[in-house]
């Protein structure tokens, strides 16, 4: 009795195969099957492709050695491009393509293509196998007394439930907790606003009506130098825009502008892209990543897109020397939402 499907076919199956084979359309031999000339031609073609691949591989090495990397060549439709790039790409591409094409040509023209019949069998085990498996499981269940000895069962389940805890506790070793770092930027009361990247301080009159400029706190370059990373910049980048004071509908705090000049975080509140596509006539600020749109004339509120929070505004004024400075740091965390951010 056959329980495994890869044993020799039974008489039933042989009959089924014979029946299916008889139902096949008549086998039509290829030209290469009946004409030895055509077969030899196909043979030559395949060999030519394999040899072509070999030649291309050799040419690849030659091109790699012989062509200087800064040499350019004009190719119609592509323009002036690197000679080395095109030579290496073409030779390597053809080398691998010709192996594949030769193999396919070989199998299509020369390898045996006689139709054969294979029967499909059900994937499930036989009824008898399944019954014996269930019986074995029940036997073991009764032998072990898993159902009859609740104290053993429950203590085992408790141990199993607690076992993964060390794995979670070990995660704590991945690094220090962020603490309040996500809420803090370099901006503090009196921080001078300078132009990014030139570092020049800004007078209110410097910014034209309808103007925009990317800016940073004056101490950012020094902090960046000291820490050796861009973390401070990623939080402190701002943009300054200027509009007519009467165009401002609302702000995040009373008189946080200075004569129509508004400072907003340059970090999108969606996933933190730097955001400065500013339309000066609509006062809309667009994020290039996912098209979140903020209305800078209306307290930086979201008017479109996936951002869930308004763009934080920085209160600004001027110092005794007449340069723009921050009145205070950001009142809310800049950038994308995060778990501990709360609803502030």
């Amino acid at each position, binding site marked *: 009795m056959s329980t495994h499907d890869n044993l020799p076919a039974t008489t039933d199956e042989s009959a089924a195969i014979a029946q299916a084979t008889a139902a096949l359309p008549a086998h039509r031999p290829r030209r290469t099957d009946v004409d030895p000339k055509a077969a030899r031609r196909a043979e030559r073609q395949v060999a030519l492709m394999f040899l072509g691949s070999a030649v291309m591989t050799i040419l690849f090495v030659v091109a790699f050695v012989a062509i200087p990397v800064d040499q*350019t060549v004009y190719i119609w439709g*592509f323009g002036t491009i690197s000679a080395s790039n095109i030579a290496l790409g073409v030779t390597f591409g053809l080398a691998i393509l010709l192996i594949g094409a030769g193999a396919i040509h070989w199998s299509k023209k020369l390898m045996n293509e006689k139709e054969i019949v294979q029967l499909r069998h059900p994937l499930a085990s036989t009824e008898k196998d399944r019954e014996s498996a269930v019986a074995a499981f029940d036997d073991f269940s009764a032998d072990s007394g898993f159902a009859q000895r609740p104290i053993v069962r429950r203590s085992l389940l408790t141990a199993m439930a607690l076992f993964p805890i060390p794995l979670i506790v070990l995660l704590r070793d991945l690094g220090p907790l962020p603490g309040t770092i996500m809420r803090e930027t370099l901006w503090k009361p009196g921080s001078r606003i300078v*132009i990014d990247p030139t570092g020049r301080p800004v007078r209110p009159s410097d910014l034209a009506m309808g103007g925009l400029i990317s800016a940073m706190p004056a101490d950012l370059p020094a902090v960046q130098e000291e820490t050796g990373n861009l973390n401070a910049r990623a939080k402190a980048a701002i943009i300054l825009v200027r509009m007519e004071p009467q165009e401002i509908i609302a702000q995040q705090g009373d008189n946080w502008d200075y004569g129509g000049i508004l400072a907003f975080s340059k970090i999108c509140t969606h996933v933190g892209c*730097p955001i400065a596509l500013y339309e000066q006539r609509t006062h809309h600020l667009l994020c290039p990543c996912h098209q979140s749109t903020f209305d800078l004339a209306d307290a930086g509120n979201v008017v*479109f897109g996936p951002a869930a929070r308004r763009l934080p505004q920085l209160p600004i004024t001027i110092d005794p020397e007449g340069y723009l400075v921050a009145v205070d740091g950001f009142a809310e965390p800049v950038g994308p939402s995060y778990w501990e951010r709360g609803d502030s």
Partner: protein
Amino acid sequence: MKKRSRRRSMAAGILMGSSLLLVGSGYAVVSAETTPAPEPTSADSVEQIQLGRQLFLEGCSSCHGLEGQGIASDNATGGNGGPTLIGVGEAAVDFQVSTGRMPLAVPEAQAPRKEPLYSQAEIAALAAYVATLGPGPANPTEEQLNLDNANIAEGGEIFRTNCTQCHNFAGSGGALTDGQYAPSLMNATPKQMWQAMVTGPQQMPVFSNETITDEDKKNLIAYVQALKVEPNPGGLDLGRLGPVAEGLFAWTAGLIALIGVAVWIGAKVR
């Protein structure tokens, strides 16, 4: 004898000093007369302004008003809705007309760049006329557009901080809202880039000479000029639009090629 000679030498000194003073102050007067920008007083510029007004009345006033005061958009009265030109300055006129954006062919989301309708001289005349309506940004001088010794690296930093968001990292332009777009910079001349920064055409914010100084502008323009001749070592640049264009090309062209191969593999051989 001694007294006399001393007096003579004193006289010589006084003569020398006074003549130096005379020459110096004379030079100062002469140079003071030549350095300021040419006032529109010469017959040439009066004629130019008259020509400009003539051109303005013919080509611009139907939207911008007979005195350049602007016309409100109004379907009832047929108002064409051109903004006021008082105080836009010659740089704005030169930019809009030399890039062919003005005169507008049809009202649409944004005036596209096209072949300019006016000659250089006519554009200069229009600009000179509009400049008389009110003070505004002037055209850059040749010195301001002299890109020799410009620092391209620094220009690139300024470009990436302030310009890439709209105009793309390679200056290819990009989409804004409501069918508007930031145009490609590949056809913009240095003068036009300079003018665009100081005038803020359409939705573009103004980058005044105080925030982006002459030096910065020079570096920035030199960077864009360098981008224009940047070679494409890999061949097709696909508009230098970034991963979306490249991915679209790879998926469509690559998939079509793969489907072709699959068809070939599956085709029955005769």
